[in-house]
């Protein structure tokens, strides 16, 4: 008999339904659903249309269990979350030395849209601020704009396991209002940190920010990194495993804008957020977290998303440097049966 893994995959999906971990996530959802703080991003009209009540969280484990609670199919734009993954692609295209010459990996403590370059080297501080992301986007290979965008979309498809699209209205709005980013790009051109195809690169940058994803996609992207670059559901390698550590490192130090220091201290899970309301968070070798909720705090991070990651980190001891015995043992909660606590 040929075993194609169908029974195993159906069994995994049922065990996710009956797992106590799903009950736990449902309780988290109920706890934070009513949170009424924060503001939906409104620097372009398309983002302000988001419903502040939207709230979804998805967790995928490296052994392929999928947990979804709330609005996990609702699409929104990926925004800054794309930066981490495009950085990974730039590393694959050129290697560490060249990429490192164009963009540093120092956290800035400055806002994401600050126009600051390193005094001595003229490099942007890190790939997670806009300037750094534009510099890494410039490095994406391809003979023309179409091919470069296609390569980026194909990369995201390897992570998520489904075909993604760019939201045309968001892209056009980003492009129309993106003068600050344009200024940064030209400043970097002046210093020779980006190439002459600067308008094409800016378009590519605005397009990658406008890719439509959902909470499940963000969890798939995170778990793929957690799993050494290999999507645990499709088995496809999304990124060369050698560069997984680079991507996760910059997420850890710079992923949550100028909240990153506090984030490492309190949550200790490498993560990247976007002003669309998404957060993708990587617990290496264990799981990926994807959350979506549009209301943001003053630093631009999704409020409910932060709460969910904080709770998961504390309750299951997922902080990278946690040494104490956690309140709950992840394995037991993932693979146990909720029925025993009925």
């Amino acid at each position, binding site marked *: 008999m040929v075993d194609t893994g169908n029974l195993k995959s*159906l069994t995994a999906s*049922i065990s996710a339904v009956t797992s106590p971990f799903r009950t736990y996530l449902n309780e988290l959802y109920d706890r934070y659903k009513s949170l009424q703080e924060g503001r939906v991003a409104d620097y372009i009209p398309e983002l302000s249309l988001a419903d502040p009540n939207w709230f979804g969280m998805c967790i995928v484990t490296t052994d392929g269990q999928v947990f979804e609670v709330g609005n996990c199919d609702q699409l929104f734009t990926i925004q800054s979350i794309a930066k981490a993954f495009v950085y990974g692609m730039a590393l694959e295209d050129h290697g560490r030395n060249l990429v490192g010459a164009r963009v540093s990996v120092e956290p800035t403590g400055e806002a994401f849209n600050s126009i600051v370059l390193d005094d001595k080297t003229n490099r942007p501080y890190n790939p997670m601020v806009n300037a750094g992301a534009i510099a890494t986007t410039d490095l994406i290979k391809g003979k023309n704009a179409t091919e470069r965008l296609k390569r980026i979309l194909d990369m995201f498809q390897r992570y998520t396991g489904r075909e993604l699209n760019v939201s045309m209205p968001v892209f056009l709005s980003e492009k129309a209002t993106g003068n600050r980013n344009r200024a940064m790009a030209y400043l970097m051109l002046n210093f020779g940190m980006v190439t002459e195809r600067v308008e094409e690169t800016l378009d590519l940058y605005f397009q990658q920010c406008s890719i439509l994803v959902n909470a499940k996609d963000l969890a798939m992207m995170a778990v793929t990194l957690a799993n050494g670059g290999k999507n645990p559901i499709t088995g496809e390698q999304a990124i060369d495993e050698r560069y997984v550590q680079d991507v996760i490192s910059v997420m850890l130090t710079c992923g949550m804008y100028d909240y990153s220091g506090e984030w490492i201290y309190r949550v200790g899970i490498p993560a990247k957020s976007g002003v669309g309301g998404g957060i993708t968070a990587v617990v290496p070798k264990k799981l990926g977290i994807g959350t979506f909720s549009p209301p943001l705090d003053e630093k631009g991070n999704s409020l409910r998303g932060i709460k969910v990651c904080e709770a998961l980190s504390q309750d299951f001891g997922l902080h990278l440097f946690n040494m104490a015995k956690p309140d709950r043992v992840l394995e037991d909660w993932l693979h146990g049966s909720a*029925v025993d606590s009925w």
Partner: protein
Amino acid sequence: MPKVVSIHSYRGGTGKSNFTANLAASIALHGYRVGIVDTDVPSPGIHNLFGLEPEAMHQTLNHYLWGETSIEEVAYDVGGNVGLTGDGQLLLVPASVKADDIARILKDGYDVKLLNDGFRQLVKGLSLDYLFIDTHPGLSKETFLSIAISHVLILLLRPDKQDYQGTAVTVDVARQLKVRNMLLAVNKTHSKLNLQALRQKVEETYNIPVAGIFPLSEDVVQLASEGIFCLKYQDHPISQEFKKVALKIMEIA
């Protein structure tokens, strides 16, 4: 702690609903609060045994799955209908027998998570001691779910080749789902069969204990699908066999 018991057979016509109703009643006779959910949404029927008329079933499991009601509200107290005595209770969640309702649930499907959460809510909300799940024959998502959450899975089969083969498939699935306890029950055996030899053969085939063997009974057939046999004829050998299976379940769960 409340216990979940699923009754399943690979093929139809094994007498699954009858078996479930009688076993649930035998346990209720010990003074327990017993819930029964008819998850056989494509071909519901167990409500007949509990004397619940379709006209009295205003809302059903289907309505819960469509988000129109809570699951406790579609649980009907049927102990009185079938002459249950003592402190026990029988609470039935029927599935709709209306063709349109069946068509809707087959067409649109439903979220299996909702069924799981419904079972949980029912057990908690009604303080059940036992939850019995009457399943649709064959394998489906709800079968997988009910096997996964069961403390005891009872596989009902008739002594013929097709049932033997199908049961082996279900046993594989149940083991993959790490089922806690599995029991077999053989139904509709010919009266001339050597029951001891049959038991031995079935137990050896699956390496699972046989909890009970039920000969094809004129008496049960006569009662057809109305009423609960072992409540009406408590001293009948068939009722005694159910009592034995009930004791075994109360022992392990």
